[in-house]
């Protein structure tokens, strides 16, 4: 990793040149940050502050991050969907005294410094800003309950990034979530540009727009990629590298990507806001080699009661809040809550520990059933959920998006159930399947779960 303690330092290291960050509505030229700011002459007012960054457009978020890193004491990155209630709770946890917001809308807070983030950048004063090790505070992607806030610094965040030749990046992710932030930092650490989606922009419009840039590297969740493959617009880009993270990458989506982009290197990464980037897998198969467990190195992994634990210098420093749970166990390992199944010398992700369906006492991970369904040629995407049963407590049911929607019917339902039964124990195979046109996605780009 380049020796740089701030984002501005990273940009200078790679050479600002003709590099830019763009969304549909804004284009940021990285070279402009040497003399300009998204806060104009008032940027200094954020010095030493704990800042809530709550804006809609990602180019604005990117600009504010570059302006604030090294200057602010702390920056809370509010992702889309982080509503005013959560912002109010988080504001107390981060001891916020400043807000960077959109011109048209600001959360109802009363803080010492409140300023809009404005593009294009405006001239700023020649100030020698203090080079603080700014704390970056990221809400974890859990959707229910009070927000859980993880504290990182630029150093923990760039730990998995190595200097690379020219890469032109795009991501389906939001850069205010860990997976997207990694791509933002990769792009800034390199010598290329970064293309981002605009709020509410449909995936096919984004791909269409990306077709106008010669992007070489692109990342998203398996859910993003399934949508991209279904959209008919996947062929608008010709990446050299396609990356999946944030959810389990099953054989179905890996095969789909390999078929769509035969020229590309395809990798799936395992990372979380709490544990950081743990590893990437590039052999085209789901899961990871079992001998990576208990392997010595900077990042160590072990299984405890079937769940993966990770010890890594890239992990968050801590969680915020007086009653926040401990981030690590006595030996410094983060409990990821991701359940692992060991078979054929390979570790397979089965799903979240707290997401299991109980079928008459037998535990079923929805993700494992989804992987089996997604491996079927006729299935593009599947969502598995519990259907209440007076006999067994719950049954496994599924919603399925077909590659050919016109083939839907009772016959195909029976065929898919029979195929699932050949791959899975009886209690795991779906009892019912409903055909749907689309599956809902969370703001974090993950499949939205029932309940």
């Amino acid at each position, binding site marked *: 990793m380049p020796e740089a303690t701030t984002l501005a330092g990273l940009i200078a290291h790679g050479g600002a040149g003709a590099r830019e960050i763009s969304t549909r509505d804004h284009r940021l030229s990285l070279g402009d940050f040497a003399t300009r700011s998204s806060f104009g002459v008032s940027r200094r007012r954020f010095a030493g502050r704990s800042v809530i960054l709550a804006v809609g457009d990602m180019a604005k978020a990117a600009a504010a991050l570059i302006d604030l890193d090294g200057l602010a004491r702390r920056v809370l990155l509010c992702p889309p969907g982080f509503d005013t209630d959560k912002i109010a709770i988080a504001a107390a946890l981060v001891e916020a005294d400043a807000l960077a917001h959109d011109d048209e809308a600001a959360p109802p807070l009363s803080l010492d410094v409140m300023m809009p983030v404005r593009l294009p950048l405006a001239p700023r004063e020649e100030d020698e800003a203090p080079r603080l090790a700014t704390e970056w505070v990221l809400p974890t992607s859990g959707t229910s309950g009070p927000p859980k806030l993880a504290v990182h610094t630029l150093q923990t965040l760039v730990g998995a990034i190595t200097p690379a030749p020219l890469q032109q990046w795009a991501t389906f992710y939001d850069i205010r979530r860990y997976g997207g932030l990694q791509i933002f930092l990769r792009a800034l650490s390199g010598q290329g540009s970064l293309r981002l989606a605009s709020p509410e922009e449909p995936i096919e419009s984004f791909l269409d727009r990306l077709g106008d840039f010669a992007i070489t590297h692109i990342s998203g969740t398996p859910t993003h990629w399934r949508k991209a493959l279904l959209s008919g617009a996947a062929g608008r880009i010709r990446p050299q590298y396609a990356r999946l993270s944030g959810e389990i990458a099953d054989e179905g989506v890996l095969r789909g990507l390999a078929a769509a982009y035969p020229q590309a290197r395809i990798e799936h990464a395992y990372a979380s806001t709490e544990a950081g980037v743990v590893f990437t897998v590039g052999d085209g198969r789901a899961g990871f080699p079992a001998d990576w467990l208990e392997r010595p190195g900077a990042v160590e992994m072990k299984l405890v009661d079937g769940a993966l634990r990770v010890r890594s210098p890239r992990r968050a420093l801590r969680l915020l809040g007086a009653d926040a749970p401990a981030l690590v166990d006595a030996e410094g390992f983060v409990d990821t809550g991701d359940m692992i199944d060991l078979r054929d010398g390979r570790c397979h992700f089965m799903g979240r520990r707290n997401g299991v369906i109980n079928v008459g006492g037998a535990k079923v991970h929805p993700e494992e059933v989804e992987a089996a369904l997604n491996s079927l040629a006729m299935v593009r995407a599947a969502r598995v959920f519990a259907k209440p049963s007076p*006999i067994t407590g719950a049954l496994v049911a599924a919603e399925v998006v077909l590659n050919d929607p016109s083939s839907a019917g009772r016959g195909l339902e029976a065929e898919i159930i029979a195929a699932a039964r050949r791959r899975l124990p*009886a209690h795991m195979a779906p009892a019912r399947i409903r055909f749907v046109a689309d599956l809902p996605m969370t703001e974090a780009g993950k499949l939205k779960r029932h309940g």
Partner: protein
Amino acid sequence: MSIRDLVLQEIRNVAVEQDKTLPPLADELPLLESGLDSLCFAILVSRLEDATGRDPFSSAKASEFPRTVGELIAFYEPIHA
């Protein structure tokens, strides 16, 4: 299709799907001896709910649950039929 035919048909469907061998489905046949396990019954009840719009198991006490094939059919028949 009558309720009787529907129930018998769905029992046969579930048995085929779950690789179970059924004895002749006489009314007196105890359900425990039908060769269907609890997972099969759960699927059967779910299918019958989809087909009839009713789930009599949810509103009944366990002591009232049907014990034979004939009682199962009666369970789904309208109360005043």
